[in-house]
């Protein structure tokens, strides 16, 4: 039996590109990203009356600037400081780390470990099903469902899950999608039927998928080397978005389409699709693509780990800082080593403001972001950050003696 299991692992592993072998160190962090993109409409935040109903997220018209930050680490009860993902939903803040998952409820962190049934201690992605409150975890060994304390893991041995390495997960009603190392897996949570979409049966060049988001009845899949795929949940039809120039090193023609085929994250809000790649950010409004790079926008780095949109604003997690943008105005957070404080760069292409804050994100290697009412949670390689008070970027730009570049 064991022999067989082992052979299966290698057999399925054989479907992966060689790069699936996960490198050590920071590259691990790079390799383990997740995209979860639902607008939070979950239960009220911790401490509030659960019966009061849902709180719809306020859509922000301008980009906020958070100037007060708190940091949570193992000292506060987190299982680890290496936070791969953060997700707010149903009255809880969930994080995935390299030592299991945890959630914040009523001021306390509660851990969820492999012993509790979690597929693997490395938790790369989390989504909360807003209809049921069920929480889905993409782990290095299977897709785990937490439902009111009951934990089940679906893996490639006991279920139809495409592959045990689950980078991204999205759950919406009966639909659950997992971006795995061997294709996108679909689960109908009502009937428990599985499907796999990979280079065998979908317009993917490689089966390696990184991120997934569900929006308006469409699943958006970030496929490594394959751009972004759209799957219409009702019709089963595919549509793919590729980098038209096909260049791997540069974006030859600006705004001609997706900036690069090596995509890492997708998020769609208010009919705007945001795509993170290792070579820049793309924005698609259904008609027109825009590309953003560190040299021509406020983007702090082209190496994008994760993107999550909220209203018209995309929060972009890179290997060198956190960015928030609506496509015009940029707010970038970077930690200044040794000071504990940080710098915020605000720009709108014409005006730029630089502000120093005594508190900022925990680390510049940023892996995840999510929102809880007016607050923002940020997963970094060295702790979980919470931005608690904000001002409008446009207001700051006009009032801060901004200089014209």
């Amino acid at each position, binding site marked *: 039996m064991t022999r067989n299991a082992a052979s299966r692992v290698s057999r399925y592993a054989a479907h992966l590109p060689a790069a699936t072998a996960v490198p050590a160190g920071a590259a691990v962090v790079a390799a383990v990203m997740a995209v979860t993109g639902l607008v939070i409409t979950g239960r009220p935040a911790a401490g509030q009356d659960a019966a009061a109903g849902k709180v719809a997220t306020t859509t922000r018209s301008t980009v906020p600037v958070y100037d007060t930050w708190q940091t949570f680490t193992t000292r506060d009860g987190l299982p680890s400081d290496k936070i791969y993902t953060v997700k707010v939903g149903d009255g809880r803040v969930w994080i995935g780390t390299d030592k299991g998952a945890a959630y914040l409820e009523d001021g306390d962190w509660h851990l969820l470990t492999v012993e509790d049934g979690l597929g693997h201690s490395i938790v790369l992605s989390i989504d909360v099903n807003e209809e049921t409150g069920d929480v889905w975890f993409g782990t290095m060994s299977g897709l785990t469902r937490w439902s*009111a304390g009951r934990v089940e893991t679906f893996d490639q041995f006991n279920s139809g899950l495409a592959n045990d390495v689950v980078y991204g997960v999205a759950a919406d009603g009966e639909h659950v999608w997992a971006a795995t190392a061997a294709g996108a897996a679909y689960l109908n949570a009502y009937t428990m039927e599985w499907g796999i979409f990979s280079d065998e049966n979908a317009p993917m060049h490689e089966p390696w998928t990184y991120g997934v988001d569900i929006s308006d009845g469409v699943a958006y899949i970030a496929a490594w080397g394959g751009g972004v795929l759209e799957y219409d949940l009702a019709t089963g039809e595919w549509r793919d978005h590729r980098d038209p120039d096909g260049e791997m090193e540069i974006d030859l023609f600006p705004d001609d389409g997706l900036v690069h085929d090596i995509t890492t994250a997708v998020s769609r809000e208010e009919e705007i699709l945001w795509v993170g790649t290792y070579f820049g950010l793309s924005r698609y409004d259904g008609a027109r693509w825009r590309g953003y790079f560190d040299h021509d926008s406020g983007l702090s780095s082209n190496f994008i780990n994760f993107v999550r949109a909220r209203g018209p604003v995309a929060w972009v997690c890179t290997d060198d800082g956190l960015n928030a943008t609506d496509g015009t105005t940029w707010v970038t957070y970077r930690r200044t080593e040794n000071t504990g404080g940080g710098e915020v760069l605000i720009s709108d292409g014409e005006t730029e403001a630089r502000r120093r804050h005594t508190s900022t994100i925990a680390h510049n290697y940023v892996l995840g972001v999510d929102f809880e009412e007016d607050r923002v949670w940020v997963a970094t390689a060295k702790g979980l950050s919470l931005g608690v008070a904000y001002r409008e970027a446009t207001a700051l730009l006009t009032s801060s003696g901004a200089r014209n570049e």
Partner: protein
Amino acid sequence: MSGSRRRRLIGSGIGVVLLVFVGVNGYTHSLEHVQYMAGTESPSLNCFACHVTTRPDGPFASFYQEDYLSPLDVEVSADGSSLYVTAEDLDRLLLVDPERREVLRSIPVGRRPHSVVATRDGGTAYVSNRWSNSVSIVDLSAGTVTGEIEVGTGPSALVLSPDESTLYVANTTSDNVSIVDLETGEDRRRFVAGRNPYSVALSPDGTALYTTSRLSRDLTFREPPATELTVLDTRSDRVVDRHVLQDAHVVEGIDFTPDGELALVTLIRPKNLIPATQIDRGWMQTFGIGVLERREGGRLIQLLLDDVNAFYADPYDIVVTPDGDRAFVSHSGADVVTVIDLPALREFIDTAPPDSLAAYANHLGVSSRYVEARIPTGPNPKSMALSPDGALLYLAERVADRLAVIDTDRLEVVYHIDLGGPARQTLIRRGQRLFHSADHTFQGQFSCRSCHPEGHHDALTYDLEPDGIGLNIVNNLSLRGLPGTAPYKWTGKNVSLYRQCGFRFAKWLTRTEPYAEKDLHALVAYIMTLEHAPNRYRQGPGGLTAAQLRGKAIFERERTNDGEEIPPENRCITCHPPPLFTNLAKADVGSTGPTDTESEFDAPSLNNLYDQAPYLHDGRAMSLEEIWTRFAPEDRHGVANDLTKTQLNDLIGYLKTLGGSDVGQARTEG
């Protein structure tokens, strides 16, 4: 004498001799055949037993079948003036006048109606249809079905929210609960329940929906069952608790004390992990209740309703009186209603030393502390409902097609309401009665139904005795869809059900007198009528999805992905050919488990495989995937090691479509 006459005479003589020879030999052969099939020396069975009366679809079926009602659920209207009864086997909702003691209307609904609820004004009833996967909306004044709501698979119990805007439906086969918005008529969301959710009930204040489950949610090999009691906060539509009834399953009935402090459920505590060497003192099954204290830090206590030498099989429904003084439990296998003295029960659990409560869950000597009376009933008592004043308890006697009316003061059946079923008791009906009765088990320890709810399976594995202690653990199989699938048992040792349920069954399992042959005949006839539920994985008559068609091709393939020929004995379809998807033969597919003394097992029929987990002869495979990902190390259970994960998914997708009628067909028939 002329030559031709002589020749005719000689010819006739030879003919007679031949006829006698054939006749005598034929008779001898037939007798031997019957003896072989029945497993006894002097069977009273004849050819008709197997070839006519146990063929539910045979040409003579109408001679020995009747349209029985089989009342399952009974509800009382808010004003007490009407009773609503689901007639499970006739696909009807019955409206009964309890005063006149007669059926006023018989309204056709979907297939296998299970439960009914009605609005307080008595205008509308909702009926769950197990085999139509729907809820019928019934206009009670017109007596017609006005609409149908599609829900999950195999809907059982349902309950209306206090404001009657929402209907909660337990989808037994799809393991979830539908929350139906009655304004839009849409199943607006479903939450995951335990395995085979069965009953749903609202706490007295309406803020919590409790869902019982019939099967253990975990199927780990040789681990005890742990069955979920799911709690939904109805204000937030969120599951807030998943209580686990450890070591229990078949949790079917639920009710609350009027103050809402206690939730009471019925349950079975099986002993499947213990070698089945004895039956006395609850070594096979015990029956009881779960008591949940609905407060912060409240306990979930299990107590037995059995006595040390008397067992009350298959507790089904539980109903608490409006004053909270008594709970009634119907034991569908014992033909008894147990009366629980609730103040005494509360005192018992309040004063019990904390460390003794766990032991009480297995104690056969404590029921007298809280059991006030046992009320004998008619056969197969199922659902119960109290009149609004609590004075009368209406009880569906399923196999008698009538309601028993129990005086809750005198604690006895005071009269019956005949629902108008056929007067004739057919062979099959008698078999149905036997199947559901624990009378043929030592001390009434269990019925066939205890391990085969609704003729299906209990998802447990057993350590049966004949082959030794701790050896040859067997996965309990469904009894549905058996015709044509003999031999039986995983070892294929029993050529017929007569053997399967005959004297060896009595010797090693029921440990009492074997069934009399006429009873055995009736029982077999009934079991042969058990059908698979309609299969929802099939998208319509003959229609398979593209993925299912790919899976079919893999199932039927003769070559691997590399083009190598697969030896016939290692193709899926060789051992599992349609239409039963078994070749009725044994094979060694490399699935020998840690407890097995044999390596060849009977190829099971694959029909309605989708709801028969766990899999393999010993139940080691928790899912269909595991058959190949974990338990086919030598790739002999059909060549599968070359399959991609997508192909394996396709194959499994196809396997799930096997068996059962099409849901669409079922609808039109219903």
